[in-house]
């Protein structure tokens, strides 16, 4: 009997016996197991949805790259007006960065709570994410309103046009993300952890993290390098 079981174990080492789990075994020996490849069976809807949303995010990033290119080309064209060095308050930017990075982290904690099917924890982390994101939008709005009140609006120079277009577009994305976040909290609360809701939550997570990636580019290129010009 023990010989039979060791024999079975050895066979399992060579090739995992995986009749219905379709490659989702945790026992290693990965090759040929991935869903959507060979014997791995069809890819789950979650993977396909994630892939599709990832392609949307990449196209969004490509759109942002055009705004970045415009800013990089026009950063010196101040038309006698203020430059980035005169305008940017790096302390404010540091606070904004901390808010957005922390909200990305709490969003990830929310996704872990979702994996564990903990409703209250998920809602709590989503709420924290939303509050941090809202504080970020508020700070950015205050910065913009302050500049425009001093006559330093987007019409002042090509530099400021590209600045407001790039940073404003990111702020708009965060605002839309906040609306989406509220919708997701309500849907999750009413409908529970259904597969469709879980996929939407996955997409929201990807969106929120991607916004943080774009913010890395903004605070580096626009604010840090721009204030040194």
């Amino acid at each position, binding site marked *: 009997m023990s010989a039979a079981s060791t024999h079975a174990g050895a066979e399992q080492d060579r090739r995992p016996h995986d009749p219905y789990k379709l490659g989702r075994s945790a026992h290693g020996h990965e090759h040929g197991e991935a869903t959507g490849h060979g014997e791995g069976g069809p890819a789950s809807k979650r993977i396909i949805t994630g892939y599709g949303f990832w392609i949307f995010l990449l196209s969004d990033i490509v759109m942002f790259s055009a705004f970045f290119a415009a800013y990089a080309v026009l950063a010196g064209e101040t038309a006698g007006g203020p430059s980035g060095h005169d305008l940017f308050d790096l302390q404010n930017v540091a606070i904004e960065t901390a808010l957005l990075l922390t909200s990305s982290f709490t969003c990830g904690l929310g996704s872990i709570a979702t994996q564990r099917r903990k409703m209250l924890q998920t809602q709590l982390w989503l709420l924290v994410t939303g509050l941090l994101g809202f504080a970020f939008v508020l700070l950015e709005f205050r910065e913009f309103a302050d500049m425009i009140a001093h006559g330093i609006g987007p019409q002042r120079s090509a530099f400021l046009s590209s600045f407001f277009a790039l940073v404003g577009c990111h702020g708009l994305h965060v605002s839309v993300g906040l609306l989406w976040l509220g919708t997701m909290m309500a849907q999750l609360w009413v409908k529970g952890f259904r597969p469709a809701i879980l996929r939407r939550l996955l997409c929201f997570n990807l969106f929120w993290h991607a916004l943080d990636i774009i913010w890395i580019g903004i605070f580096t*290129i626009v604010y840090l390098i721009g204030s040194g010009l």
Partner: protein
Amino acid sequence: MSDRDEAEPADAWDAAPGEENANLREPVSGLGGYILGFALAALLTAASFYFAGSNLVWRPSIPMLLAVLAVAQMGVHLVFFLHITTGPDNTNNVLALAFGILIVVLVVFGSIWIMAHLNHQNISPSEMMQHMR
């Protein structure tokens, strides 16, 4: 006894057919992955803000240093938060990412390159007419 499935310990990763559990085997998933990613990202951000205003490094090199730190932080976000890894379920995502990076690099550096040349060789219309005769 002959059914070796009975001997297999039931574990947390067991999934019913059709259940949608992706990326559970990824090396950087779970709480530890997020905490590590957050710590690395915070460290890189702090380094960016510190070096931007410091005299510790040669000043003309600071923009390049900041760019390197930003790219590193984007990498951290991709791996630890977006879970773009080398796992088998991620092949398509990685390829799409590679294509996206190609387009972004072409758009940004192509624009900077072309516009720098245009600025450099700025010719007024009257001069242009003379060149064309």
